[in-house]
């Protein structure tokens, strides 16, 4: 018998706990979560009003699987020598294997202290309950969270302004052509979008920009990215470099300690990567669990993420590189997919957008093409008459 401890009860930690049991592990499994709630899914928080709390699993599931779920506390310190996790409430947990799945917290730049952020169900409740028809909402940051919240708030009749420092939306993860499609839509919906907008000062009800303009706000929300929660690992002397550094198995330099999900930096195709992705958190949680049980496989899943704004959906598989050309495939109804190939013609990334789930199938196929390293001729990819699925049967 052994003892597995997982610190962090988000998507990643919960999947790790379930996977340990699915793999037949019979020792103790303890899952430590900082929030008072049962573990829940975060993606709906910015997409629905009122916020729909969707549990990852009902409480009985944890009981049935003999997973000890400790809520409302967090890991304070790791005693590596004695393989012991000290909790903030003073309790200690001895472990044979420890998984750090502490996730990320919303970033705030200096001067943004008075802005709300959206990360937890508590945040979502606070923000959305303050929004009504006519509420003046100012959102700093034109990324996924900011834009999803903008669309949701617009649906409630709020007057929404989005301030983005870059010259386009979603610049970090999404090709310009898709960003432009979403930008048009937000403008049509009546969102006031200001690109290249630098926030100078932020008071509770006034945002002042570098160009001197002042914007009145009933509520200000900052959606300017997230930073990994790495303190536990750093304090224990483990390497942190934009995330807790792990190898392909998601193991830190300490063979008893693993890290997975938003808090870790892992090798993807030879380069260190940190992802903030619901699916990656799940996949890595499951992978880390198997690694904790001794599996030596490298994590090889292709990154995948999505966003929904109004009735538009976007999905990306692989890591799109904005500085490299895209090949465009029309998918009907204004939907399209942008592919990137490497020098050998293998698919590296696919980014699609359109109404609803119009691109879902193509992206799902692309994900498999990327995973399997299948080379495709550009003219085949761009011809809407080609059945992409055939490419998988090569």
């Amino acid at each position, binding site marked *: 018998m052994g003892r597995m401890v997982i610190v962090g009860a988000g998507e990643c930690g919960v999947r790790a706990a379930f996977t340990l049991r699915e793999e037949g592990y019979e020792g103790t499994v303890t899952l430590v979560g900082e929030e008072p709630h049962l573990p829940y*899914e975060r993606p709906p928080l910015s997409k629905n009003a009122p916020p729909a709390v969707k549990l990852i699993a009902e409480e009985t599931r944890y009981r049935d699987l003999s997973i000890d779920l400790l809520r409302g506390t967090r890991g304070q310190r790791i005693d590596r020598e004695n393989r012991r996790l000290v909790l903030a409430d003073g309790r200690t947990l001895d472990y044979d294997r420890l998984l750090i799945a502490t996730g990320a917290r919303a970033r705030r730049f200096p001067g943004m202290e008075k802005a709300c952020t959206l990360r937890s169900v508590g945040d979502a409740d606070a923000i959305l309950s303050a929004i009504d028809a006519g509420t003046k909402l100012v959102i700093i940051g034109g990324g996924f969270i900011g834009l999803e919240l903008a669309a949701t708030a617009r649906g409630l009749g709020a007057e929404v302004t989005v301030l983005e420092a870059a010259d386009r939306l979603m610049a970090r993860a999404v090709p310009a052509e898709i960003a432009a499609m979403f930008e048009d839509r937000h403008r049509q919906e009546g969102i006031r979008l200001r690109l290249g907008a630098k926030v100078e000062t932020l008071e509770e009800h006034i945002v002042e920009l570098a160009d001197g303009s002042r914007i009145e706000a009933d509520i200000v929300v900052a959606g300017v990215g997230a930073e990994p929660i790495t303190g536990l690992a750093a304090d224990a002397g483990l390497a942190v470099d934009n995330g807790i550094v792990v190898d392909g198995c998601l193991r830190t330099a300490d063979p008893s300690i693993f890290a997975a999900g938003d808090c870790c930096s892992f090798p993807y195709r030879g380069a260190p990567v940190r992802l903030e992705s*619901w699916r990656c958190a*799940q996949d890595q949680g499951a992978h880390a669990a198997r690694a904790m049980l001794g599996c030596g496989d490298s994590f090889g899943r292709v990154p995948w993420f999505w966003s929904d704004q109004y009735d538009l959906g976007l999905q990306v598989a692989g890591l799109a590189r904005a500085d490299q050309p895209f090949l465009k495939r029309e998918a009907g109804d204004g939907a399209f997919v942008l592919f990137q190939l490497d020098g050998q013609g293998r698919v590296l990334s696919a980014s699609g957008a359109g109404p609803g*789930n119009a691109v879902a*199938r193509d992206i*799902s196929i692309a994900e498999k093409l990327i995973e399997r390293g299948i080379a495709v001729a550009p003219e085949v990819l761009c011809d809407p008459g080609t059945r992409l699925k055939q490419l998988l049967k090569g």
Partner: protein
Amino acid sequence: MSQWVEACAVDDVEEEDLIRFDHDGRTFAIYRSPDDAFYATDGLCTHEHVHLADGLVMDHIIECPKHNGRFDYRTGEAKGAPVCVNLRTYPVKVEDGRVLIDLS
């Protein structure tokens, strides 16, 4: 009592694919497998009620278009995270080039 309803023509569904079929306020998914058999399930994913018809069929698996929940459409069995609730399935028969499903 069985309650057979005509869902579509055989040729409406490509091999290893599915279509959506709405009937009486409900929505279903009709599948044609690679070995040319027909199956029917509820049309919405059990995770977030997304229409499965936009999803990808590979062999005997339907993958939800949203969060990649996977089901074996022959049995409705959920194949792992994020889905844990099975899909309901319905009996299917083919008569004179028409696909019928039993909603009883």
